[in-house]
């Protein structure tokens, strides 16, 4: 007998970052087009209730897998065991999207739970292309790579950021995940025009959008990509601008600290859905 596995696929609607404390509310939600994204690393365990919860969620909603630990912008190929764990999750849950970051978080035996910056040089481009190739080969599919938040103007870049991302996508066939909050945060911190940067972003390569809130640093004149506040009006305006110019994409509301009730996140998610619906006819 043939067995078929169905991948639930989301249209260009808005989803939510899944929080275990919202499990019951998520199961009872009637929001049309809702989907969920999880951090892959939180589910790289052998078994138990956390995986069982994700199994239940994935039976009801399209799922997107967002990695934070592959360290694609590191000097070494992705850790083989970590990549194998990601491939197992991908095979088990059949997510409609898989994404990672233009950042690094591992150096040898030491891991940093953060998304660290690197110099955009041709050597880095070649290594990151190798790392993305290794990932896409292990998964048997293309992935989306997310633009990072910047806090530091580094000396030594030989590529501008957009040119670098476009070249990597061209070489590897990966798509891009546009994090609009990261654009707003980086524009503030490095002093560039967020709207102009967004207009120059290669929209045709964008397979997903992230929206989140940021927080001012208590000491420095910097915005932090905290995922700990409601989405700011400036980020909403940038999102509307991108969607109006380029059409709808699956869009995720991220919230990782000071997580409010499910209903409050759903209100932000419904606002994003309404903006996407205005443009999805043309998409």
């Amino acid at each position, binding site marked *: 007998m043939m067995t078929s596995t169905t991948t639930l696929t989301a249209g260009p609607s808005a989803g939510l970052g899944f929080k275990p404390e919202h499990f019951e509310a998520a199961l009872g939600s009637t929001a049309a087009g809702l989907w969920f994204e999880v951090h892959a690393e939180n589910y790289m365990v*052998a078994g138990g*209730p*956390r995986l069982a919860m994700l199994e239940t969620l994935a039976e009801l909603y399209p799922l997107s897998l967002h990695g934070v630990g592959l360290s694609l912008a590191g000097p070494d190929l992705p850790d083989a065991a970590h990549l194998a764990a990601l491939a197992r999750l991908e095979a088990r849950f059949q997510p409609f999207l898989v994404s990672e970051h233009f950042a690094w978080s591992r150096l040898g035996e030491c891991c940093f739970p953060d998304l660290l910056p*690197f*110099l955009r040089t041709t*050597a880095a481009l070649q290594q990151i292309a190798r790392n993305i190739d290794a990932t896409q080969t292990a998964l048997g599919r293309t992935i989306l790579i997310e633009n990072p938040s910047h806090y*530091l103007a580094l000396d030594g870049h030989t590529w501008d950021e957009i040119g670098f991302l476009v070249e990597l996508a061209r070489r590897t066939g990966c798509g891009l995940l546009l994090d609009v909050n990261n654009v707003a945060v980086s524009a503030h911190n490095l002093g560039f025009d967020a709207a102009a940067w967004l207009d120059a972003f290669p929209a045709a390569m964008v397979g997903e959008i992230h929206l989140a809130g940021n927080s001012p640093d208590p000491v420095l004149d910097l915005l932090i990509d905290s995922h700990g506040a409601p989405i700011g009006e400036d980020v909403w305006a940038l999102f509307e601008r991108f969607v109006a110019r380029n059409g709808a994409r699956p869009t995720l509301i991220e919230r990782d600290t000071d997580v409010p009730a499910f209903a409050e996140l759903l209100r932000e998610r419904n606002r994003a859905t309404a903006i996407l619906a205005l443009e999805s006819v043309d998409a």
Partner: protein
Amino acid sequence: MRDFHERFAAAIAEPVDGPLAIYRNTVMAGVCEALAANFPVVCALLGEEMFAAVAVDHATAHPPANPVLAHYGARFAEWIEEQAWTCDLPYLSDVARIERLHGEALFAADAAPLDPGALGRLAPDEWMHVRLALHPATRLARSRWPTASLWLAHQDGGDLSCLVWQRECVLVTRPGHTVRVEPIAASAHRFILSLARGATVATAVEATLAALPDADIAAAFTLLLNRGAFAALTD
């Protein structure tokens, strides 16, 4: 490319000012939150402020070797033991050990537990000679302190006032996807340890009764079966 990464890692390895501090703080906050999530009772015993300082010291000695932070803290108990400030809290490292076992049980592989009915279907002489494998989530420990009771006292509805200051044997199981930590009789511990080391049921009963003549084997076996401490029989 590696040179930049090494210099950057070195720059955030110590307290630092300016924008680099954003990265250092995020890394440390991530590591410390993970440690607090994996060792909530150690955190409660020390208080959040003290725990935060301890977590930074621990992270400096043992940064995560894996991005899966659910597994972070494998050496926390041993590290605690080496710290001079814990001499007034001699039970703290054992509490950390139990929390580590709790985490291992929580994320252990899924497997069907042994159905007591399956033993009933064996002939009496047959089942005394059967070997029982532990369920992947089952963990055992012995402590010089009432560590399981301390752990239980810090759960919802727990009460420290009835703590009896004595040695404890500890059983960690995961019946129905909920991790249970509980003190068990020395005889029950002896019995399941014997089985875990590959003894037949008959040999485990003999060994337990030889060491502890008053052992209530029936009670121990019933408890272990109820907790799903064994994996289903395989052919």
